[in-house]
């Protein structure tokens, strides 16, 4: 699982560098996220802009990562493509996560907060 992490102000941004998070790589994604988020940071934003496809196993893995980080840290999402956004909407998980349109939007959100 290809992830790229960038620290930006107080945000740790994790970019998924693959076009799918599916049943074949859900466990690997979870483990890679555990390692990527080991460094302390107040906010963690998962950038899904490159992900064209996410199935229910991929969704379950994203929820699992949120649970790994709780209660002290929150997982925010950014850059959902149309099909990925649909999975979050249909499962109501869009009501659980803070979802930003882009990393810039996530950064502005912090300034306002």
């Amino acid at each position, binding site marked *: 699982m290809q992830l790229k992490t960038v620290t930006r102000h107080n945000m740790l941004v994790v970019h998924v560098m693959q076009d799918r998070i599916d049943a074949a790589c859900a466990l690997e994604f979870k483990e890679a996220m555990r390692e990527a988020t080991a460094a302390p940071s107040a906010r963690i934003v998962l950038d899904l802009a490159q992900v064209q496809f996410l199935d229910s*196993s991929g969704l379950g893995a994203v929820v699992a990562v949120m649970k790994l980080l709780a209660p002290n840290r929150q997982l925010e999402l950014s850059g959902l493509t149309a099909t990925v956004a649909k999975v979050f909407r249909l499962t109501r998980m869009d009501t659980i996560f803070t979802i930003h349109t882009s990393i810039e939007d996530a950064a502005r959100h912090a300034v306002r907060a």
Partner: protein
Amino acid sequence: MRSGPEVTADRQQAHLVIDSNFLAVRQGLQMLCEAPPLADLAEDPRGTAELVLAEVLNNLVEHGYRTEKGEIDITLRMSGARIDCAILDSGLPMPDGQPPAGSLPACADVPVDALPEGGFGWHLIRTLTDDLAYRRTGAQNRLTFSLPALC
């Protein structure tokens, strides 16, 4: 790795047989999306078709073929504004002889550590398909449903 789907000359039907493992499902979905009839659809209905097929096929890998591996036979056929899908397998029968109801696990007012990590698959399948039917004949399961071909 198996070869790609057989597509009829009129581009209306694709047929593909895959092994029951997650990587074969991923490769099969990619091949089906690149061949007619799915390749001829707009992005939105193609994305929906890929998602529904992923849920059905991954369920078979996880449950139907839990104890013994086998083959999954997939046929997609354009039928007016819909795509008729037939998925055949020789794994375990559906529990209670019918597909799960697919009720959505609760996530509102649930503490973070109790949020559901699964149980979404059949909700997605039931929400995005029509005419869902399941039949067990001898040692074979046959699941049929239709998907929208237009936006």
